[in-house]
């Protein structure tokens, strides 16, 4: 297989450069690739965003509709976040049911937003135990260059911040849509995920596709606007030492604060 020979050569190069603290694309170890966030790209969705992180691109849309609450959470609205790698994004992606990597991706993005309590779900209840508002956040990866965790996370957060919630009124105890009236979403904080890879005991932020292939392990840490940690997911074969995990948490707080400033620029971002 030709590709694996090229991968082996690239890995050699990446390892050699890292010994001198350099990366294959010239970035500093804790430097993010250029991040652009455009919102409102899909007008038919109640909220949407296109995020580019280097050459990784994600389109995210929020659909907001009436739903029944979960049986054990009758006093909460619904938030569900999914992710999909489109077949046009990557030659190795295949259409069909999601594999374990895509399931993990969706669950990590969902967890970061859910555990930060970014959306105050108690404000999305119309009739307790019967009728609530649901936010369905769907991420579609359209181009792949590594680190889908952060790209999908920023796209989801930007879409939710900038979405507009339709208004339903109770008429004879039946929720009825009031056309033309919308409100801002009940957001409380801006969760920011920072994914770090470990290659030969060096920690790098935002690995690109080449680096992603030669990582020994990775970790995604999500912080909220107060600089507290609200979600962690370790992946990959190798382990981390205690000191490495503490260092990663410090990087996630400092780098996360910089990224939060970018996300605050999107409509609805300045109130968190």
């Amino acid at each position, binding site marked *: 297989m030709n590709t694996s020979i090229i991968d082996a050569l690239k890995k050699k190069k990446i390892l050699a450069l890292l010994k001198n603290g350099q990366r294959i694309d010239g970035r500093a170890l804790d430097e993010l690739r250029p991040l652009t966030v455009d919102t409102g790209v899909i007008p038919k969705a109640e909220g949407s965003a296109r995020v580019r992180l280097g050459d990784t691109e994600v389109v995210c849309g929020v659909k907001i509709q009436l739903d029944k609450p979960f049986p054990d959470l009758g006093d909460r609205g619904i938030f569900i976040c999914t992710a999909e790698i489109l077949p046009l994004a990557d030659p190795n992606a295949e259409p069909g049911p999601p594999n*374990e990597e895509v399931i*993990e991706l969706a669950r990590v993005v969902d967890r970061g937003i859910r*555990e930060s309590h970014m959306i105050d779900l108690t404000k999305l209840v119309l009739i307790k135990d019967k009728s609530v508002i649901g936010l369905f956040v769907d991420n579609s990866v359209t181009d792949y260059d590594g680190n889908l965790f952060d790209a999908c996370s920023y796209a989801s957060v930007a879409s939710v911040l900038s979405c507009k919630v339709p208004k339903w009124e109770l008429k004879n105890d039946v929720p009825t849509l009031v056309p033309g009236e919308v409100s801002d979403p009940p957001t409380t904080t801006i969760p920011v995920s920072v994914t770090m890879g470990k290659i030969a005991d060096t920690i790098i932020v935002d690995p690109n596709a080449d680096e992603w292939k030669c990582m020994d*392990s990775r970790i995604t840490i999500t912080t909220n606007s107060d600089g507290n940690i609200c979600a962690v997911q370790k*992946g990959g*074969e*190798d382990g981390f030492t*205690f000191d490495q995990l503490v260092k990663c948490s410090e990087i996630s*707080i400092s780098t996360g604060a910089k990224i939060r400033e970018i996300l605050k620029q999107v409509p609805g971002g300045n109130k968190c």
Partner: protein
Amino acid sequence: MGVRKSDIVLLDDKGIRCDGRKIDEPRHIMIKAGVLKNANGSAYIEFGENKILAGVFGPRDVHPKHLANTDRGILRCRYHMQPFSVGERKNPAPSRREIEISKVIKEALESAVMLENFPRTVVDVYIEVLQADGGSRCAALDAAAVALADAGIPMRDMVSACAAGKVADTIVLDINNEEDQEGQADMPVAYMPNLEKITLVQLDGVLTAQEYKKCLETAINGCKIVYEVQKKALKDKFFGDNPQ
């Protein structure tokens, strides 16, 4: 992770938790190695109310063949919950949660197992949760690691897992089901006690940077307690009064 109100007192003023434990005390742990006849290695664990069986097959031929790796063996892991293991019947088909847990358990064990000794083969780890309580992924990992050792598969180190969390604004060891539902944070950790490496870490819930460190330290101490129980299970099987 809960912010739901309930009447349970998670931590009383004497520092005693809802099930009577102290903040740094794990639940009762019992592990038995070599409980299955057909598996190459197996273990049964009771960790609080968790009751979990793990069976290991291999190294053996890979099916389907295209998954085989020419320079090292592969590890496959299935974490599965029985329909009767939880309060409301669980659909027996693998859920997204179970698929994710299978993946993180596999990755937690991979660095311990010397797969480079067994190219073109697979080691299958099957975990069946018969009864689930809080922290089932850690208990499952503990049983799986003992089952791997019981199968005689060369390992660099044992893998021991235990969770820590935040309950009533306090960092506590090994959170149970109630604390998982009502508490503020849950951090499962897997640790190789001799190599001092963390091979699994997840977190649900909000922690300050200080609490994060404390939580990690607490969980690692829990892993060391679990490690002693794992060693005892293996010693009992191979050097005990009734070796099999």
